């Protein structure tokens, strides 16, 4: 694929903005690591060598306790098993991930389920950021919470842009009555208070739906109420481009409206859109965190930063590590994306690369 030389210059310019570029690299790295999250943060070991046989429990079905000659049929408790291996000393071994906890498992601290301080503050071993109110590892919850939030917002962005760009371009291209009516409809639609719709919807959705289905529904609702703002930009940009000679040339050559919009006009308007993207991601992460904070977001027990923040505000004095970890993680992610956004905006600034002198 050959890129437009202008785009290549913009990308080079983006690379030269160090803060944004390194943020981008770091974020991509985080996303890549989170994709393989089960290998890093999990209560299942990477490899178990038992009686000469190797098991890889990370992915796939649960291995019942019977596999390792334990007297139960539910999933093996690997931390217990490891202790058993060590006391028996029969050459069995296992490699646990860096953070050997699952985001949903409760571990008790001093005999009860309550927040345990981070291990470097004298808390139990390997809980690098401590545990939350029911004894779930905060690092594990933040890690998986990040994975869900970032992919949620990326899909959210893709969908809002798909709808927003299409509708906006059509409005700008056709203009006239169509534009007038569509704009009024969008104005009406965008005045429906989004938060109330989410609250109402989630109070009536039966939870017989599986977790992914419920997350999907939240996504759909958020997209339905967010695509409108993008249409304004696309509409004006398309109006402008439509008046240009190359569009007229394409029309004369007999290209259809879809071809003209997506093959001719869109590449010339995309640079404005690109600069919005990181900020849309930020808006989506903030929205999902806020919804979780209010209790109307991702269904429990999905790990989420908003839920941790909420817990944190209720345990400010007794477990300050909950709120500080969640807050720091959120700030870090939003900061990374903001840096990227600033760099993209600067790199794609039309004032620097305009073809009209």
């Amino acid at each position: 694929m050959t890129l437009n030389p202008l785009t290549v210059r913009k990308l080079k310019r983006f690379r030269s903005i160090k803060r944004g570029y390194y943020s981008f690299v770091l974020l991509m790295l985080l996303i890549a690591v989170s994709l393989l999250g089960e290998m890093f943060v999990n209560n299942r070991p990477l490899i178990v060598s038992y009686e000469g046989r190797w098991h890889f429990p990370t992915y796939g079905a649960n291995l019942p306790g019977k596999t390792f000659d334990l007297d139960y049929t539910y999933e093996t408790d690997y931390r217990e098993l490891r202790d058993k291996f060590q006391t028996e000393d029969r050459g069995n071994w296992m490699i646990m991930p860096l953070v050997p906890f699952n985001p949903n498992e409760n571990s008790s601290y001093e005999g009860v389920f309550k927040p345990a301080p981070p291990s470097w503050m004298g808390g139990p071993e390997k809980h690098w950021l401590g545990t939350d109110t029911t004894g779930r590892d905060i690092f594990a919850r933040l890690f998986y919470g990040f994975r869900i939030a970032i992919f949620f917002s990326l899909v959210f962005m893709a969908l809002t842009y798909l709808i927003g760009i299409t509708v906006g371009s059509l409005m700008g291209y056709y203009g006239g009555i169509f534009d007038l009516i569509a704009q009024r409809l969008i104005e009406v639609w965008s005045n429906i208070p989004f938060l109330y719709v989410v609250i109402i919807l989630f109070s009536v959705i039966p939870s017989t739906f599986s977790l992914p289905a419920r997350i999907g529904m939240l996504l759909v609702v958020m997209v339905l109420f967010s695509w409108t703002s993008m249409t304004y930009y696309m509409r004006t940009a398309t109006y402008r481009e439509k008046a240009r000679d190359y569009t007229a040339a394409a029309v004369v050559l007999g290209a259809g409206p879809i071809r003209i919009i997506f093959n001719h006009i869109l590449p010339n308007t995309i640079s404005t859109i690109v600069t919005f993207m990181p900020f849309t991601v930020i808006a989506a992460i903030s929205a999902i965190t806020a919804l979780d904070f209010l209790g109307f977001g991702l269904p429990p027990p999905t790990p989420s930063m908003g839920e941790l923040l909420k817990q944190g505000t209720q345990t400010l004095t007794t477990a300050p590590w909950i709120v500080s970890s969640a807050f720091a993680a959120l700030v870090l992610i939003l900061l990374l994306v903001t840096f990227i956004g600033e760099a993209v905006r600067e790199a794609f600034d039309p004032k620097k690369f305009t073809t009209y002198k």
Partner: protein
Amino acid sequence: MPHLKKSQRNYALFLSCGLLLLVACGKKEASDTSPQKDARDEAKSYYSVNSEFFHFRTPADIPTDLNWENGQHLPEFASPDAVKGGTLNSWIQDFPRTLRTVGPDSNGSFRRWILDNNTMSYASRHPNVTDLTKNGFEYYPGLAEEWALDRANKTVYVRLNPAARWSDGEPITTEDVLFNFFFHRSSYIKAPWYNNFYSTKFSGISRFDDHTFALHFPELRPDIYALALGGSPTPAHAYTELGDDFVDRYQWRFLPTTGPYIVRDSDIDKGRSISLTRNKDWWAQDNKLWRHRYNPDRIRLVVIRDVAKAFEAFRKGDLDYFSLGLAEYWYDKLPDDAPEVAQGYIHKLKFYNDVPRPTYGLWMNQSRPLIENHDIRVGLQHALNWDLVIRKFSRSDWTRMQTSADGYGEFTHPTLRSRTFSIDKALASFAKAGFRERGPDSILVNDQGDRLSVQITTGYAHFKDMLTILQEEAVKAGIDLRLEVLDGTTAWKKVQEKKHDIAFVAFGVGPEMFPRYWETYHSANAYDLAFLEDGSINPNRKVQTQSNNLQIIANAELDKMITAYDKSDNLEEMKQLAYSMEELLREDASFAPGFNIPFMRTGIWRWLGIPTSGNVKISTSFTEYGLYWIDDTAKTETEKARKSGKTFEPAITVFDQYKLE
């Protein structure tokens, strides 16, 4: 910025909506000036129309052989050390939506300050002497001077104390007692529950003179005094404007009360705070069993919407007491070594009470797939690790609930025990139902490939963490419990529609003599027509919604026992029936008993005085019986000490005289 514009538009929209509402309200109030008839006249014609219920007799008609009781032999339970005066500072989470005590919105958490804990009834159940006598529980006099039970005619005679006065000084007479029936049976008050209660629970009332009346009942239950003496009159002279607009007209009026506290108009600061003022001329303040109670001159209730914030206000000393019921508060947020506690400024109290326990447990809907299978229900009972919950969530403070009616003293089954957590028993029981193999996620599947997965619905967000513990443990026994945590109202609605698989709810119960079974277990509350006339199961029966039979139990044998129980006037027979019913319910296994919370925990500032016994046996809240007082000297002393750094002896007191082993 486009976002800004959007939000500005929204704001404008809200604003205009608000204005419209205001305009609408204004108009309505303006049209409310039509001259009112006197409701007392209407009541009089109502009595003559319903002469089969309202009887007017003469003192000569009172039987002479009645055995009058007056409860004067009962011991006092308030502390003679109590002093009057001072202000109690407390909080409420929401501002009350009305000052009415009946009608829409009146059943909020504020009501107990002006009704439940403030109204003086004809006589009250003694909160410490709880043994059963031949006439039921022991009662001490309130508005009544004496009372008598006429068993043969299912009638209770009551003689009002001639000294009894409303808080505005008007005497309390039988006119108010009759009016109470007219009022609660009228459609003006928009309270169908009261309409029904006052129409069905009583079969009539007789007035003999200004101070003597008798209540007639359709049946004589062992707890007849609760109905007869637990009532209180309605001030006829204050409801002269009663009419179709009652709900609006009386929305913010505080009416004369029989109790010690009144609300003055100037103390209503809508949305922020509301204060109660002690009626210094309260007629009963020196009566036996009423003296030394209701001591603070003022009770100031501030609206604090966030519990965590209210707790901080308490630690600062802005609130005088705070409930430390949750383990998190008792152990972590206000531990024994917290500075305020260690320095003796805040005292911690743990009081074991002995009352019927709210039924915290899992209510399984037998009309749902999977749960309809008895083996699955039994398996599920064994898959619930309540012991772990009690040990690790409540820190061993709670106790395991054994029956669906714990805390009723002699009425609670003495030997029945709930099922304990056992993976083997659970697996064996699930295997009987066809669930033998574990799927890839450890959850059992049957031959058709169905997963053993059911849903728990709850409206208690604060118990969410506890339920996740049950959920994780249940996986070990191969059953998947899906949690659905809804907001309180939505969850209750769902459960009332009987759309739940399993509900985690608790019915709050008053300090009643014996448990109720009809509401929760009779087939009439399970199906529209559970059985056909020949006793066989109706194949076309439909689940009955809006009732408290959450397990959809329809058992002809149980129905028979319930009917016999509800008709019985024999305590011993009722007890045996209650035991049999509990045994049957255990066998049915659709109610999984959870836990009991056998105590109240409260933090109080040291200037709050309490009796040496802590509280009374059947109390369910710190303020319920008005036994505390404000020691103003201690308050000044404490405030000075906090500035100077002086400390006092810490006090962490456990009152376990009513603790059950």
